[in-house]
Structure formats: C-alpha cells, structure tokens
C-alpha cells in the first residue's frame, strides 16, 4: 500500500492541452474518485499514473518515488479497464494468474492466491471457463480478481461498472467498497457517474476541462461546492440556478441580504463573503432546499409544469421568474399543471455564486475552507 503524489502534472497531445497542472495528494489506503464530464481528462490522468501515457511535465510519485520514467510493470499498480481487457484465449484462472506466472511465482503459491481470490469474488465455479463464456458481471469480477491477486501498491479503476446494468452496478459498488475496506489498498477510481462518486469515495476529485475544480469528502462537495460547475455536476436531481443581483438592505446590515431575481422578487440569503451590493449573482438551491408553502404571503409564486413521482419522493417541475426549477418533496402533491404554487427557499442552505467568476461566495458565518477540515 502506498501514497500517490501528483505535482503539477500536465499532458498535451501536440498543441492540445488536455491536463493543465494537476496537483493531488492521495494518502495511503485512501479511496479517491475522479469524477467529471466526458472528455475532462480523467482517464488520461489515471493512465499517466499507470504509466500507459507519458507525462508531458510535472511529477508523479508512488510511495515517495518519482515514477515518471518507470514502465507500467515496475510501478506495482493494478488497473481495471472499462472493457475489462480480459485475455480471451486464457481461462479465468489463467487470466488471474498471468502476472504471477510472469514473475515466476511458485506454482503452489499461485494456486493458493487464485483459490483465495476466487473465494472472495465468488468465482470458484468458473475458473476453467473462457471470458467469452461469462456474463458481464462475471467478467467484471474476473477483472477485479486479476488486479487483487497481485497485491499491488495501488488499484486504478477506469469506469469499471459502466458496462453493467443499474442493479448490478449498485451491487458491485458496495462490493468494491467492502473489498477496499478488507484490503485497505490505495485506490483511484474514475467515473462520470456522480452517484458512484458520492457513494464510494473517501474523497472526490471533481474535474472539468483538465483542471481540478474541487477536492473533498462527498458531503463536503455536496454541501459546500466550490463553484457552479461542481454544484451542478454533483447531486441528482441537479441544483437549481437562478440568476439575479446580490442586494443588501442598507439600514440593517445584519439580516438583510438577498438575491433579486429577474422578475423583481427577492430571495433572502445569508450575507456572502466578498459580495458587493448590486453585483451579478446566481442563487443555487438544491431541490430539497425549496419547500412548497400553503401561505401565499411567505413564498414566491411559481407555475407547475410537471409532477414526477419517484416512488420515495416526488419531484415538482415548476417555473419561477421564467426559469425552470425542480422541487423535491416527500409529500404526494396533486397540483394541476399550470396551477400556481408558492415556494420558499431554505436561507441557511442555499448558495450564492458570483455569476462572473462562477465561484461560490460562502456566507460570512462559514469558516474559510482552508481552516475547515
């Protein structure tokens, strides 16, 4: 097991810069999830750690040693590919033992390791089969097994669950987490699925356009997103954004701040750090932080567009100040389409973003991120 340090790593393909200076420290035994939209450079970063891709500049160290110029096989890492990349002409057992065989490990040792791993992953009955005779989920397990057998310093996963159906994905998610707890191996896991990121990570690394946007625990990223990109990418259904201006009441500074929306309605918010009065600001409110109120005076009027029952809860789509918003409720509302409802925003929970820089302006009551842990 080992820590991984990435210092100012860059990657370009010719004139195209794909990664712009990545800094990341992954501690020993941590489960890190790299998340971001398609094409943001997650796979590229992972493959640079694996040694499958050259590092244009910067350093990557594993267990304190710079590995920039080491071959993949000398980095002592294992990787699980999205396509699984199982050797089609070898049996399950041969697939899993290939690396050990190449290292001339003793036969009995290999057999022990295979039996052990097959037990953990429930592959014991399939050891003699060829990959083509396995289901997608079973192949996925074999790919995991091939990585585990070697007891590497670190595991790298590139979207390992994206070829599975929803139910199996959910099941494998928990299994990978359990496996990680059991083996305690440093893991870097790439996904574009924010639910996987939320449920599996010790820390999430949110990436966009080759730049790390934010690093933090799932709850931290969810509750205190650094900018509009992270706020919109993490969370499903996604956060609502309403553009307007940041206003303060001059007479009483202590409790008078709000976002003035395009239709002139005012949503009260906490005073934001570094915000100036009248500046362009965006209100960010998660669907669960908007409530439908019966009292017309204590809420803003919105028009119902669609009611979406989701079993556990219901999602109400509505239009507020000409912008579509989504409201999450545990009730079972039966509003008619186009009827008017009144909504109120949870002042403590909503966010204020600087529209221009897209950065979040945290409330003055919140400690600075660098002082928080």
């Amino acid at each position, binding site marked *: 097991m080992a820590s991984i340090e990435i210092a100012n790593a860059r990657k370009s393909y010719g004139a195209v810069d794909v990664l712009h200076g990545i800094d990341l420290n992954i501690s020993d035994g941590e489960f890190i999830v790299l998340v971001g939209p398609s094409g943001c450079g997650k796979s590229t970063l992972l493959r640079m750690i*694996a*040694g*499958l891709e050259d590092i244009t500049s910067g350093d990557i160290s594993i267990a304190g040693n710079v590995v920039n110029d080491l*071959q*993949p*096989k000398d980095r002592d*890492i*294992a*990787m699980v*590919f999205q*396509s699984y*990349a199982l*050797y*089609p*002409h*070898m049996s399950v057992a041969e697939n899993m033992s*290939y*690396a050990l065989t*190449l*290292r001339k490990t003793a036969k009995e040792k290999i057999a022990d390791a295979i039996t052990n791993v097959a037990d953990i992953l429930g592959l014991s009955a399939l050891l003699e089969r*060829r990959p083509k005779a396995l289901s997608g989920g079973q192949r996925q397990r074999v790919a995991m097994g*091939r990585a585990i057998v*070697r007891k590497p310093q670190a595991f790298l996963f590139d979207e390992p669950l994206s070829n599975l159906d929803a139910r199996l994905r959910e099941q494998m998610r928990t299994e990978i987490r359990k496996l990680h707890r059991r083996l305690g191996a440093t893991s870097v896991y790439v996904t574009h699925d924010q639910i996987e990121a939320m449920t599996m990570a010790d820390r999430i690394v949110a990436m966009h356009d080759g730049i790390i946007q934010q690093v933090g625990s799932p709850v931290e990223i969810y509750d205190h997103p650094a900018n509009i990109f992270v706020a919109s990418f993490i969370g499903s259904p996604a956060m609502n954004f309403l553009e307007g201006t940041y206003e303060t009441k001059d007479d009483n500074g202590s409790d008078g701040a709000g976002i003035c929306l395009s239709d002139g309605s005012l949503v009260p918010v906490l005073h934001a750090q570094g915000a100036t009065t009248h500046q362009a600001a965006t209100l960010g409110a998660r669907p669960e932080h908007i409530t439908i109120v019966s009292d017309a005076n204590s809420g803003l009027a919105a028009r119902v567009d669609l009611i979406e029952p989701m079993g556990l809860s219901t999602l109400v789509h509505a239009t507020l100040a000409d912008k579509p918003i989504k409201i999450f409720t545990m009730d079972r509302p039966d509003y008619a389409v186009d009827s008017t409802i009144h909504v109120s925003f949870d002042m403590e929970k909503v966010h204020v973003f600087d529209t221009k820089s897209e950065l979040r302006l945290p409330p003055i009551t919140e400690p600075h991120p660098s002082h928080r842990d």
Partner: protein
Amino acid sequence: MTLATQTGKLPVERRGGFSKKLSGILEPYLYVSPALVLIIAVMLMPLILGLSYAFRDIRILNPFSGGFVGMAHFQTLISDQAFLGALANTAWWTFGSLVFQFGLGLILALLLNRAFLGRGLIQALVFLPWAVPTFLSGLNWAWMFNPVVGPLPHWMTSLGLMAEPYNILSDPDLAMWGPIIANIWFGIPFFAITMLAALQSIPKELYEAASIDGATTRQQFVSITLPFLAPTIAITLMLRTIWIANFADLIVVMTKGGPADSTQIVASYIFTQAFRRLDFGYASAIAAVLLVLLLAYALSVIALRRAMTHSDN
C-alpha cells in the same frame, strides 16, 4: 417460425389435391433453380468434362484420337519420371515460396502496425506487387537475373555469392530459386495485408493490461498476438498452399520449366503437356491427380484445425 410453417401448410390442407401438394413441394426448388442451373453449367459441367478427358485419348493433332482408353494415362503417369520430378519440384516450389512469403509478410505487418510518419503511403506501396500482372513481373524478374540486362548477378558477384556473373535461371541446381524469389516478392503483400487486418482487430487494452501485468514485448506477442492471429494464419496458409501449388505463371514465363525440367512443377507440366505437346487427355489425367492431392491436403488441414479448436474449448 411456427407461424411461417403454419401459414405454409394451411392452403395445402384446405385445398388438398395431388398437383397442389406437388407444386408446394417443388416451389422452393423452383426458386433456387436459376442459381442451380448456373452453378451446374459454369462449375460442375467443365469439371466433369475435364475429368472425363483423363480417360480418353485426346490429341489435337491426331484426327483419329478421341477414343476411351480407361486407366492407360494413369498407368503411364506412375512411371513418368518427368511427372515424379515435377511432384518433388511442386513441394519445393510451394513450401519454399510459402515460408518466406508468410515470414516476411508477418514481419512487414508487425512493422506496419506501429504508428509512424507516412504509414498510409507505405501501406499503399506494399500492396503494389500484388497489382502488377504476373506476366509482367515474371518477365521483369527474368531480366533481373539475366547478367546482360539485369543487375542481380553483378550484385551477387560483388557480394561474393557468385564467382562470376551468370544467369541462375540456366543453372539446373539453382534455377528454381529464380521463380521462387519472384513469387516471394509477389506474395508478401497478401500476407502483409491479411495479417495487418488481423493485427488491427486486436484491442489495444489487452496489450496495456499485459504491460501492467509485467509481460515483455515478446511475451505479449506469444500470449496475445499469436492466439489472435492463429485462425487467420491457418486459413491463409491453407489457401496460399493450394494457390501456389497451382500457380505456374511465373515459372512458365521465367523458365518454361527448364533447364532440363529442373523447374517443372505439376501445374506447369500440365500446361506443357496440353499446349506444347497438345495431348489434352494426358494433361487432364495429371490435373486430376493434382486435384486429388490438393483436396486431400485441404481436408487434412481442416480436420487438423477442427481437432485443435475442439481440444481448445
């Protein structure tokens, strides 16, 4: 499926009648009959006709020939020294050409499978020998081996491979190498292109996974590349063996089977018998033997492959 058979049966049951039933049975055959007629006319008839010549005395210059002679041609064949020599030459010609065509073609494919500047152009150029008419390439190579007009004997002399420049095509011990070299040049593209196509179908991730697992380039070749290429190798080698064994163009153009029959293969011997001695009956008998030999070869290769893939699974 069940629906189709039901609707197919229904009208027969309803209307009954013998002629209706008969036309129901005949109908599918009538649909395929144009194709059947075509196959019989252009493939089966010539084959049977050609084989029947083997049992007849057909000499173009003899107006009284044409009679049935039974196995006489085959009896002559068994003791025909020229034919037995041609059989041995065929084996030499076929496997000499095949080994080098395949080996060099595979190496070329492996080289072309890497990314480098101008790869597209080189790939197109590699195909070129294949596009040259065999008659032309035969003439060209014959000239190249001729010390009067060609450079090869002079080069070989400078390299010390030859005491003095002379034409290897006129040396009974070496003459076979002339057409073989021309054939290697001609056949490399076939293997290079087919192997390259097979190589490009191998997923890159397999090599990446193997390099992480610690496999060297050679180990990756053995445990990934070769198993992937195996089916293509098996089928192309079999096809080419039959093809080359039957392929007399280069020999006929370059040496005409000489000197002293030293480059005569069965296919060129058939050509000589038919179009120089004008003995079509005897030529057909030789062709029949060649057909049987190649069929036996093909069947044994297919059986071998089936046995191998079965033990594989």
